């Protein structure tokens, strides 16, 4: 019995999709918005993006080498984190700040909690919020070229919706973080992800709808179409809803939980934007909701096929 055949538990075939293919698709989908950011904001935006991607990948590589863990930089997840973090920084950000945020995102938020799949919070947003709290002034300095004005959301907050040009916001011709200004570029990427089956509409759909309803009710502008459109197109909402709220690791896996998660995101973003200290609210809404994920999942265990819900919860 020297040449026994290889055995394994069924099934014996596997689909072609791999985690790195999925992550690569996300990176590809981010490119339109990133490229737009570079074209719109200029050379320094490119430097910020390159620094965040390079430092994220390097941090992951060095940490895993030092810890004698298998090196996983080939799975594109650090690239995605770096790209997302860079797109969440202003183009005026100095290189050291971009690098610091990247190290925080990968080392503290991701690797210290066990690496890919184990982080409880979106690493890119963790990095962004760390920088936001540490360097508030630099993080809200949206100056580029000769332009030193405020972001559309800040304008909205100050006064009436007449002060913003929604068409320019959709194109992306406004102040803001590097990758968040162009709604069109973000939607192109989102459409690619939907087409590839990487994301579905459950989270971004409920998020955007809930947010729109919230703003109609509590935004204080009634049925002001321009105000609503500007709120939807402004700030980090589009980038957040399509690329960060949909992050697999930090969103619920249960289908009903994804709906609940989207609703919570919409409400929190609305609260933060309407009543918070800053006109922005997306990143805090997402990282706060990330923390609720285990709880959401516990209450949204789906009913198994052929099971009927009985009084007193799901018992098998």
């Amino acid at each position, binding site marked *: 019995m020297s040449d026994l055949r290889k055995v394994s538990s069924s*099934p014996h075939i596997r689909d072609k999709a791999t985690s790195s293919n999925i992550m690569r698709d996300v990176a590809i989908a981010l490119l339109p918005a990133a490229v737009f950011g570079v074209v719109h904001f200029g050379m320094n935006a490119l430097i910020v993006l390159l620094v965040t991607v390079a430092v994220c990948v390097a941090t992951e590589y060095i940490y895993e080498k030092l810890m004698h863990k298998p090196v996983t930089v080939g799975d594109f997840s650090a690239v995605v984190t770096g790209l997302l973090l860079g797109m969440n920084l202003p183009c005026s950000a100095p290189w050291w700040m971009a690098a610091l945020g990247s190290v925080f995102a990968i080392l503290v938020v991701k690797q210290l909690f066990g690496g890919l799949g*184990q982080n409880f919070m979106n690493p890119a947003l963790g990095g962004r919020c760390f920088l936001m709290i540490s360097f508030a002034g630099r993080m809200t300095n949206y100056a580029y070229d000769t332009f030193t004005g405020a972001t559309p959301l800040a304008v909205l907050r100050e006064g009436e919706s007449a002060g913003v040009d929604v068409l320019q916001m959709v194109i992306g011709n406004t102040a803001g973080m590097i990758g968040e200004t162009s709604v069109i570029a973000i939607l192109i990427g989102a459409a690619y992800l939907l087409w590839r089956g990487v994301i579905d509409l459950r989270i971004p759909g409920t998020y955007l709808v809930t947010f729109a309803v919230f703003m109609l009710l509590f935004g204080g502008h009634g049925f002001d179409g321009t105000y609503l459109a500007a709120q939807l197109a402004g700030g980090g909402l589009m980038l957040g809803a399509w690329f960060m709220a949909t992050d697999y690791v930090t969103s619920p896996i249960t289908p009903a939980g994804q709906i609940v998660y989207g609703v919570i995101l919409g409400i929190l973003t609305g609260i933060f934007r309407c009543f918070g200290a800053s006109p922005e609210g997306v990143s805090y809404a997402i990282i706060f909701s990330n923390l609720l994920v285990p709880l959401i999942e516990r209450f949204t*265990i789906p009913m198994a*096929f052929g099971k009927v819900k009985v009084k007193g919860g799901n018992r098998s």
Partner: protein
Amino acid sequence: MATLTFKGGVHPYDGKELSKDKAIVPYQPKGDLIYPVSQHIGAPAAPVVAKGDRVLVGQKIAEAGGFVSSPIYASVSGTVKAIEPHFVSTGAKVNAIVVENDGLYEEAPGLSIKPFEEMSRDDIIGIIKESGVVGMGGAGFPTHVKLSPKDPDKIDYVLVNCAECEPYLTSDYRLMVERPEKVVGGLKVVLELFGNAQGCICIEDNKPEAIKIMQKACENETRIQVKVLKTKYPQGAERMLIHAVTGRDLNSTMLPADLGCVVDNCDTITSIYDAVILGKPLISRVVTISGEAVAEPSNFECRMGTNVAELIEAAGGFKTEAKKVISGGPMMGFAMFDLEVPTTKTTSAVTCLAADAVSESPTTACINCGRCVAACDEGLIPARLAQFSEKFDLETFQKWHGMECVECGCCSYVCPAKRPLAQMIKNVRRMVMANRKK
């Protein structure tokens, strides 16, 4: 009419073109025949022959060991060489009767049967029991038990499972194409037992030829319909089949009869026909030998107990190295460590894969992508169940409905991190079941 289907499932490469046009060829075994006494769910059969006895084709060599059990018949004539434990395709070692084939195929008298019109309900079930018919789709549940529900009048559907959703398998397809009268005839026998039932021959829409032939074969049958199902794995799983055809949902605490359904595999139905109408006990079945590593993929009418290695040789042997040889199909079949095992009542195929996807794709961390959730036809969260499995958290596993898993393997198939989710879930299911027995 909307195509009948279910939620979830996967679309693996089906490999059926390798063997679907190969007509069924009877294969006469050369080596010893091995008959494990457990080829079915339930009590093992008890041997009624001894070493040195001469047996004939169709002679009973082991008696059913209880109600949920099934007798075993010799498929060749020859001498009983030994009664000893032998490996079977699942990797288990089972007591088996070994018969040396004398190549004469001398036949024993068939089962004593009355003309079908004169048979009572008990006669029919008695013959099915006596002939050793069990569920030949894979589970091997004794058919006479399935056909004896508490209230036969409550059965309103008899479903013939011809979905054949497992990749590479073409044995049911060939039966439908070549012997449609047996499929219809077998179904008519079963319908005789259930006066209120409608018969449905359920076929996936990737077998248009079989659909056409079966439709023609039951043209004049008022109680039989052909149901066309959407091609998707695991459409042939009992729960998915019942759901697609009747809209009724079965869970782990129920039997199909609780929902008024009786489900039998295509090969089982033709064996019922052979037993009840022709008086022939179950001694052979159609076995597909296929896969990229086999030189000439074939469908054999194979005498039970034939050595698997011999069958592969009969199919031209390997043309490339077979990285994995599976008893059954690649989604739910058993990988065999040794090919010196016999075919049994439940061996529908031997699939010889030229590539082993499992060992070639390294496992990485779960990224929580939810593809397993989308693929799970039972509405479960395989990624979480696998986590509970890693922690041996049996309680939470059950709270998340882990026991509802039917082990179809869709979750492992789609997992982009190549995690063996189905295997991890299976492990815990076994543990829970063992604890329940205590």
